[in-house]
């Protein structure tokens, strides 16, 4: 074979669905030219858990605990957005005090999630001593969660029309103590993550998502804010007590005066959001201590609430800014004990497509940190998996579209 006829060919490397480097099942197919990634493709659908189907056979109170198990880290925002959707259908007014309590728990979850992510990001680039340091900080936040809700991870704090546990005056000193600890350690973490050369070398100019691509691909949460898109449900469409609190969009230019949309910027956004969450918790606790103790739930008698929910009809959407981005729950009730339909859209769903522009042109060794930089949560995202008579079927685009149109028609009836 002469040199003229030889063409430079790329080769394909599949990674996953089960792979030691992946924490959750997802499959990538990379087209490589040497070390460079020319093209990337993502295959999903390996962890379908039929949560929505199960939910359609349970009453709204039971669904709260089922929704909590969609994701271990977002175990507050999933049931809460479901509750928001049901409250909208039933027209339940949430007491003022509960609105502030809801903010405290939401922000505490954001601190836990972002510090967890920061640790994982450090681990992905092989900087394990930072992993342990960040998780030490996270441990304190988890201790506070356990103190306030009774459990570290699955908090079981949500109730339709409010929350289940109050923050009393005796609890305030412990919150203040933790907040001070977090504040002190935040500065330390910020210095390590943003000034350390190891992080800068691995994250600056790596996994770039431009503002245009972020808008086109509908990225959500810190991923899109790191590209300079000012999108945050807490500010755009305030829920809970967020409308009365003082905070603003977090974009990386607050700190560096420039937006690159790389992994480094995503680290900046998440770190600054931890600071913002600490600040929001302080604001809420101040409000709560100044407020007379009152109702924390609209209808304390659960049997009565269940009866009320049995009679409602209509559809509602609950939107929340989860740590990873916007989460949407759609619920339709039709005067039955169980919802007629329940649909969950987890934030990772919107953050998967941005992987492709981010990964193009990067090296193989950058895959873990770039993929981790959107904080993916596969198990929350997987929604479709069809197995009939033991055969797994892959639906074509047209087929899916037809099914989707049929479902819309069915719901419209």
């Amino acid at each position: 074979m002469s040199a003229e006829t030889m063409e430079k060919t790329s080769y394909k490397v599949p990674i996953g669905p089960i792979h030691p480097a992946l924490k959750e099942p997802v499959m990538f197919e990379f087209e490589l030219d040497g070390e460079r990634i020319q093209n990337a493709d993502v295959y999903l659908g390996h962890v379908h858990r039929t949560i929505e189907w199960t939910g359609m056979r349970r009453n709204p109170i039971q669904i709260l605990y089922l929704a909590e198990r969609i994701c271990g880290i977002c175990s507050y925002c999933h049931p809460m957005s479901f509750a928001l959707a049901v409250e909208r259908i039933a027209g339940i007014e949430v007491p003022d005090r509960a609105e502030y309590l809801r903010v405290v728990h939401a922000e505490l979850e954001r601190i836990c999630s972002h510090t967890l992510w920061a640790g994982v990001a450090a681990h992905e680039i092989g900087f394990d001593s930072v992993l342990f340091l960040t998780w030490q900080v996270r441990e304190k936040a988890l201790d506070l969660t356990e103190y306030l809700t009774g459990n570290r991870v699955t908090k079981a704090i949500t109730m339709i029309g409010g929350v289940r546990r109050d923050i009393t005056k005796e609890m305030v000193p412990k919150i203040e103590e933790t907040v001070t600890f977090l504040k002190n350690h935040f500065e330390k973490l910020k210095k390590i993550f943003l000034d350390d050369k190891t992080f800068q070398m691995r994250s600056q100019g790596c996994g770039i998502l431009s503002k245009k691509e972020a808008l086109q691909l509908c990225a959500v949460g810190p991923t899109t804010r790191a590209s300079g898109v000012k999108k945050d449900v807490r500010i755009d469409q305030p829920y809970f007590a967020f409308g009365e609190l003082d905070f603003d969009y977090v974009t990386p230019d607050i700190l560096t005066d420039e937006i690159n949309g790389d992994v480094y910027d995503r680290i900046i956004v998440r770190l600054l959001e931890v600071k913002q969450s600490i600040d929001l918790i302080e604001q809420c606790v101040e409000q709560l201590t100044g407020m007379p103790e009152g109702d924390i739930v609209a209808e304390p008698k659960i049997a009565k609430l269940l009866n009320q929910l049995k009679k409602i009809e209509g559809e509602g959407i609950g939107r929340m800014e989860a740590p990873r981005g916007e989460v949407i729950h759609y619920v339709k009730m039709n005067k039955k004990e169980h919802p007629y339909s329940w649909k969950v859209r987890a934030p990772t769903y919107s953050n998967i497509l941005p992987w492709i522009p981010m990964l193009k042109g990067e090296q193989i060794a950058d895959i873990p940190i770039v993929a981790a930089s959107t904080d993916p949560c596969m198990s929350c995202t997987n929604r479709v998996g069809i197995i009939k008579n033991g055969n797994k079927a892959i639906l074509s685009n047209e087929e899916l579209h037809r099914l989707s149109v049929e479902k819309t028609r069915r719901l419209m009836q």
Partner: protein
Amino acid sequence: MKFSMIPQVISQMVKKPFTNAFPSKYIPPSVTDFLKDVENGKATMIPPIKTPENFRGKIKYDTEKCIGCKLCIKVCPSGTIEFKPEDKKVRFYMSRCTFCSQCNDVCPVNCISMSDEFLMANTDKYAEELIVE
């Protein structure tokens, strides 16, 4: 600073570990022997970290008070509770429980409460200590 983690790592070396202490100072050669020694008073165990107030642990059930209204069965998200029609009482299978305390909240006569017991690992899901009735 170029490598700002280095001073942190050095200071960490002399600090006390952040994690909770292991039940004994060193890992004993045999855990069962160690536990027997503790029972006989020959060895002492480092006590576990206390659970916080309002912790949700193993369910406590007051059979006398229960009126058999089945509300707890209706709200239980995991099907932990079984109704016994012969005496109109309930039975809890703790291996299924998610510790949400919803049955405790809904009970009209307060016959259910949550204890602070959390060490319930068992290979048999129908073990006697995992069934509350």
